[in-house]
């Protein structure tokens, strides 16, 4: 039985477990129909031209974890940014882990999607926001159909959330292969500010497929900083669908750090529904060893006087494949838009591949839009310079690559987070040097 059929029949089982009279259940029913009709995307679709899901769909995933699993904090401490105080929402095999988490209802809601979906006091927010940003594409629809758990964050007006929020999904791998479909909803009201770190981590080498959907709503003048750390094991695959609806004068940024995983697909969509909005999309990808990372971004400029900045850096070693497909749409009304996009890549190995397609669709005339895209190598003369000054070749290379990705790291606003990423990069490049010399 292929995965699509399995999911469709699992849906009937799933219906038995959830409240089928709820508002959300109608959405689920519609969504499963869309998925049934569209199926998994194939390479024939323009948006999936360079990424094939065939390999990862072959596994026999169990759609619902059979047993409850627990893990000790000491075993997984390293996956947290543990040197700062933070709110934590932690899931193990898709189930909420209360002893690893630290949630709150004090003046804001940092809690679970399952409780938000079932409790009446959240009903209004759910009806106003749930599934309002996600598209009707097959994978987000599949997630909507099975949506039951995930992070629910609602920050009311004029609130500065002092601690970052960490959302971590662990997969224990106690079952042979797991499929997870977390669903996050983040609503930030006027003038509020929040920082969120999201991570998916599997704890052994059994295959995992995560199809995640995150919807973020930034209301007037809200500020959201979102960081995604993708450093999973080589058998874990992630399809991340993130949708961000911005209202006027809000500022949203998403940083994606992709170092691990077998296949990672990031569908990152920004919709600017208001004037003077600022959107930032940045990413560093450093991969090797048969890995495949695909960044598929969309910035939709709908109203005037907005800005967007994109900067994606990639370093590709061994037989890895990198894909970048960045789309900027500027609608007719969106005059005075400034949209910038840069995608720089370094190929280290002969077997590595990079496919990139920066795409502009512009319907307004008074705009400044540009994109740049490069593929190249490390500068030989720079390497020689460093070597002649006693820096070994390996370290010299690492320094250059670090410098190459530094633009993206510079805009990370949590210092501890920056340090952590720096360490991961050093680790990934196989050197033991601190880069902040």
């Amino acid at each position, binding site marked *: 039985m292929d995965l699509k059929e399995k999911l469709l029949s699992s849906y009937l089982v799933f219906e038995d477990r959830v409240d089928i009279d709820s508002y959300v259940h109608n959405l689920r029913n519609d969504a499963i129909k869309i998925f049934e009709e569209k199926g998994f995307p194939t390479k024939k679709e323009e948006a999936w031209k360079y990424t094939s899901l065939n390999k990862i769909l072959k596994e026999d995933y169990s759609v619902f974890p059979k047993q409850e699993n627990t893990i000790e904090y000491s075993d997984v401490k390293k996956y947290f940014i543990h040197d700062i105080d933070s709110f934590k929402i932690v899931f193990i095999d898709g189930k909420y882990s209360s002893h690893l988490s630290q949630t709150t209802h004090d003046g804001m809601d940092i809690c679970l999607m399952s409780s938000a979906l079932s409790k009446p006091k959240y009903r209004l927010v759910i009806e106003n926001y749930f599934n309002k940003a996600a598209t009707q594409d097959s994978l987000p629809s599949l997630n909507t159909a099975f949506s039951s758990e995930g992070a629910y964050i609602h920050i009311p007006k004029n609130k500065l959330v002092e601690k970052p929020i960490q959302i971590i999904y662990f997969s224990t791998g106690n079952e042979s292969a797991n499929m997870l479909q977390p669903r996050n909803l983040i609503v930030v009201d006027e003038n509020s500010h929040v920082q969120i770190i999201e991570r998916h981590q599997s704890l052994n080498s059994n295959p995992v497929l995560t199809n995640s959907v995150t919807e973020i709503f930034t209301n007037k003048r809200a500020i959201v900083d979102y960081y995604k750390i993708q450093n999973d094991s080589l058998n874990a695959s992630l399809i991340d669908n993130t949708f961000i609806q911005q209202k006027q004068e809000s500022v949203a940024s998403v940083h994606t750090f992709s170092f691990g995983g077998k296949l990672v697909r990031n569908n990152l969509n920004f919709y600017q529904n208001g004037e003077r909005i600022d959107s930032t999309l940045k990413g560093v990808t450093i991969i090797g060893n048969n890995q495949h990372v695909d960044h598929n971004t969309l910035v939709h400029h709908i109203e005037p006087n907005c800005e967007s900045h994109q900067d994606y850096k990639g370093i590709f070693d061994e037989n890895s494949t990198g894909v970048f497909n960045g789309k900027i749409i500027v609608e007719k009304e969106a005059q005075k838009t400034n949209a910038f996009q840069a995608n720089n890549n370094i190929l280290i*190995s002969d077997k590595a591949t990079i*496919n990139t397609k*920066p*795409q502009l*669709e*512009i319907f307004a*005339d008074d705009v400044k839009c540009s*994109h740049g*895209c*490069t593929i190249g190598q490390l500068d030989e003369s720079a390497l020689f310079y460093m070597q002649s000054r006693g820096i070994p070749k390996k370290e010299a290379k690492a320094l250059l690559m670090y410098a190459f990705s530094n633009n993206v790291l510079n805009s990370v606003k949590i210092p501890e987070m920056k340090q952590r990423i720096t360490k991961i990069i050093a680790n990934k490049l196989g050197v033991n040097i601190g880069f902040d010399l």
Partner: protein
Amino acid sequence: MSNKYTEDDLREELKTKEYEYGFYTDIASDTFPIGLNEDIVKAISKKKEEPQWMTDWRLEAFKSWREMSEPEWANVHYKKPDFQAISYYSAPNSKPKYDSLDEVDPELLATFAKLGISIDEQKKLANVAMDVVIDSVSVATTFKKTLGEKGIIFMSISEAIKEHPELVKKYLGTVVPQKDNFYAALNSAVFSDGSFCYIPKGVKCPMELSTYFRINQAGTGQFERTLVIADEGSYVSYLEGCTAPSRDENQLHAAVVELIALDDAEIKYSTVQNWYPGNAEGKGGVYNFVTKRGLCEKNAKISWTQVETGSAVTWKYPSCVLKGDNSVGEFYSIAVTNNFQQADTGTKMIHLGKNTKSTIISKGISAGKSQNSYRGLVKISPNADNARNFSQCDSLLMGNECGAHTFPYIEAKNKTAKIEHEATTSKIGEDQIFYCNQRGIDTEKAIALIVNGFSKEVLNKLPMEFAVEAQKLLEISLEGSVG
């Protein structure tokens, strides 16, 4: 030059211009019934007195075409032509339309005047092998003699099929195979005529070859087939098209151009396309679906230059397959769309050999309610060590009802590849216009000036005499687009 221009010049010019429209009486021939089937393909082949291998070749293409469907990926929207409602063999416009000059559309006359193409001027451009009706015999023979001395073969492709079957057989369809795409397959099955050019080893073609230079072959109609072969170490510059507006009645044009540059050869192919773009309301106009591709062997170079101002819908991607080591591909393009025109154009640079280089400069100008897209592919294969590409796509938007789009695909599979791509979109700055106004240049002129500057990089690549006309053409195409 325009002050010397008299009404007589104009009249004379118009008479000769008619030839280029295809208003040519001699080959008034029977028109085939509409529709397309195997019999029609056979009949076309028979009409052309083609050998059996050519008929089979056409039939093979037709067979593949039937199994193909029309591509829909391009960023253009139009009513699909009904392929069974077209007559596949007819001498286009086989009767003169007008008896006297007064009947000619005054708009057209005005355009001629603006373009300032006079017979005298053309004659002066002695180095262009341009066929002019009044003295066609003499001019043509002179040029033919010069070319013949060098061993250059330049004739219509139907003649070539008969006279040089070995060359045609060897190269036809090698760069653009019959089943390459929907329109190429259609063209392969039904092509009516086109040009054939062969430059022998080590020969530098002494003049710019032009498609006007086609003796007794008026307009080749909708399905044109061009094959240019530059043998080892040779050079040729080839001009196609015309700056004068062509009011062709044919809705659909599906041409195929194949260039083959053998070791150390160089081909420069320049196009000016100004087919009827439809009226200001977007009615009518030509659909231009063209497949153009060149193959570069070792150290060879192919350079495409195009100025696209006409056609209601353009679908055109002149490409280079850089097969040989050290080969070079270039693409310089200006695409102008106004009113309701749609253009989806660009190039493909396929790097297969080592140390191959490609340059892409694309300038898109959209005005009115038009949509202008650049679509390109740069592909570096695993064996293409030290491949180098530079791409630049700039778009200029005039007015807020048009659109400019870029779809660049970049695929690199070799670590030594160096690829740069940059694209910008902007409008003409108010400060720039103000600056010009201040110095007594009116807005319309100022725009022309700025557009000219914007396109300079590409205009410079055109053969000199062509560049002058192309420059004027840009002005005319954008006339009235500034409100």
